C-alpha cells in the first residue's frame, strides 16, 4: 500500500471502491478540519453513502478529542536540576564558537596535535592520517557527535558487556610465558590477566590492569571496528580521543597504529591517558 496518497483524485472514472480506499486516508484531515473545500465536498459525498467511513471519521474525531484531554507529563524537579547541571557542564567544557563547522575542528585538531605525533613516534602520525581520511566522507551536520550515547555503538556495548562479565567472575591467574604488557602502561598498574574476546564482530585482545582499587580493562581492537562509527571518527578528529560513559563506567577510545584501544574504567577513576607513553603496536 502506498504511503503517499495523491491528494487529487482524477475523475468520475474512478471506481467507487478506489475512491472509498482513497478517502480512508483523508478521514483524519476531514475530522481535523485540514482539508480544502474541494476535498471536503468529495469526502462528504462519500460519507453520505458509506456508513463504515462515516463511523471511522467520527472515531477519528472522538479519539483526537480524548487524546487531547490527557494532561502533559510533568518534569520532576530533581530531573530538571540534573538536566540543568548536565547542560551547564557541557556548555562550559565545550565552548566552541557557534557556527564553527566540523571540518574546521578537524584542521584545528591536526595542527594542534602534530607535535605530539613527533613525540609519540610514527604510529600516531599514521593514526591521524587514517582518522582524517576516514573522517572526511562522513562529515555531515547530522553526524558530528562528541556526546555519543554509549549504547549506540556496538563496540562500546561489547567492551562494557565483557567488562561486566570479568567483574562478575574471578580472573584466571596469568601463565608465566604469556606476554602481559598492555598497550597502555601506568606506573602503579599491575596487569592481572590477558584474554581474547570479540568486539564489533572481530577478535580483540583484552588486558585487565589493577590500578589502586580500580579494575581497568584495555581492549585492543581492529582499526576497522574502531573507526566504524561516525561519532567515534568525529570525536577523535575533534579531541584526539573518544569518550563516553554508561552508568558507572567510562570508555575512552584511542586510535593506535593499525588498531584502536578502548579503555574501560569505573567513572571518576580513569587513569591519566598519556598518549605519548603508549606503545605503538
Amino acid at each position, binding site marked *: 500500500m502506498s504511503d503517499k496518497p495523491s491528494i487529487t483524485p482524477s475523475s468520475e472514472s474512478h471506481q467507487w471502491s478506489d475512491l472509498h480506499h482513497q478517502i480512508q*486516508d*483523508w478521514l483524519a484531515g476531514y475530522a481535523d478540519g485540514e482539508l480544502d473545500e474541494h476535498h471536503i465536498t468529495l469526502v462528504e459525498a462519500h460519507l453520505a453513502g458509506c456508513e463504515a467511513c462515516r463511523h471511522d471519521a467520527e472515531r477519528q474525531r472522538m479519539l483526537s478529542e480524548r*487524546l487531547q484531554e490527557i494532561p502533559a*507529563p510533568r*518534569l520532576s524537579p530533581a530531573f530538571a536540576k*540534573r538536566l540543568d547541571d548536565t547542560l551547564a557542564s*557541557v556548555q562550559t567544557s565545550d565552548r566552541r*564558537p557557534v557556527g564553527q563547522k566540523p571540518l574546521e575542528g578537524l584542521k584545528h585538531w591536526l595542527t594542534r596535535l602534530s607535535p605530539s605525533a613527533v613525540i609519540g613516534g610514527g604510529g600516531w602520525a599514521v593514526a591521524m592520517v587514517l582518522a582524517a581520511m576516514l573522517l572526511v566522507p562522513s562529515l555531515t551536520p547530522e553526524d558530528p557527535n562528541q556526546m555519543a550515547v554509549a549504547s549506540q555503538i556496538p563496540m562500546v556495548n561489547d567492551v562494557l558487556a565483557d567488562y561486566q562479565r570479568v567483574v562478575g567472575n574471578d580472573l584466571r591467574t596469568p601463565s608465566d610465558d604469556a606476554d602481559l604488557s598492555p598497550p597502555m602502561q601506568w606506573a602503579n598498574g599491575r596487569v592481572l590477566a590477558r584474554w581474547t574476546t570479540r568486539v564489533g564482530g572481530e577478535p580483540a585482545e583484552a588486558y585487565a590492569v589493577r590500578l589502586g582499587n580500580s579494575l581497568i580493562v584495555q581492549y585492543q581492537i581492529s582499526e576497522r571496528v574502531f573507526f566504524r562509527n561516525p561519532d567515534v571518527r568525529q570525536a577523535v578528529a575533534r579531541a584526539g580521543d573518544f569518550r563516553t560513559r554508561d552508568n558507572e563506567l567510562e570508555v575512552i577510545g584511542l586510535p593506535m597504529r593499525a588498531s584502536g584501544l578502548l579503555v574501560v574504567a569505573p567513572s571518576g577513576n580513569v587513569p591519566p591517558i598519556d598518549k605519548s607513553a603508549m606503545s605503538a603496536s
Partner: protein
Amino acid sequence: MVNKSTDSKRAHKMRSTGSKQQFDTLVRPWRYRLYGVAQRQSASTEIAEDYTQETLLRAWRDFGQLDDQVAIYAWLLRILNRVVADGYRRDNRRRQLAPVLTTEDAVLSEHPCAAPGPFEQALKHQTDAQVMAAVRDLPDNFRQVVLLRDFEDLSYQDIAQILDLAPGTVMSRLSRGRRLLAERLIKVASDNPAASDNTHTRVTPHE
C-alpha cells in the same frame, strides 16, 4: 503551535552574537514540552529523561547549525525524533510491520463498541494510562504523527516539516494510525470490561 516568525527573528538576533546565553534563552524553555513528548513514547520515566537529556545535548552540539527558517520547537522535535528512533533501534523495536486497516475491518465494522456512541463511552471509561499504553504500542510511523497532532496540536504542515514528510503522507499516516489505535482500544475495552470501573475489581459481563 510553533511560532515561526517570532522564534526565527529571535534566533537570528540572538545567534549573531553567539553564546551559551542564546541557547538558554531559546532552547531551555522548551525542555518541559520536549519531556512531555519523550515521556509519551517511553516505557519508563528514566528512558524519557534520557531522551530529553540527549536531545538537549545534541541541540547544544548543533546549535550553531540551526537554520534561521526553522522554528526552535520544530527543530528540537526533529532532534528528539532522531533520539527516540535511535532508542527504538537499540531496543530492536523499530520497523514493526504497520498494519493498514480499512474502515470495513471486522473489529471496526462489527464490534458493538465500534459504533460512534459506544466507542465514545469506551474511550471515556479507559484510563489515561491505558490509552497512553496503546499509543506507545503503535508502530513508529503512526505513533509519531499521532503524538505531534493530538498531543502537541501541531498543524499537518509543521508535522510534515518535523518528520520530513509530504503533508499528504502526514494525513494518511494519521488516518491509519488513529484507525489502528481505535481498533486496539476497542479490543482492550472488550477484553477488560471492568478496567474502567474503579469501585469493582471484577465485573461479569452480561451475555
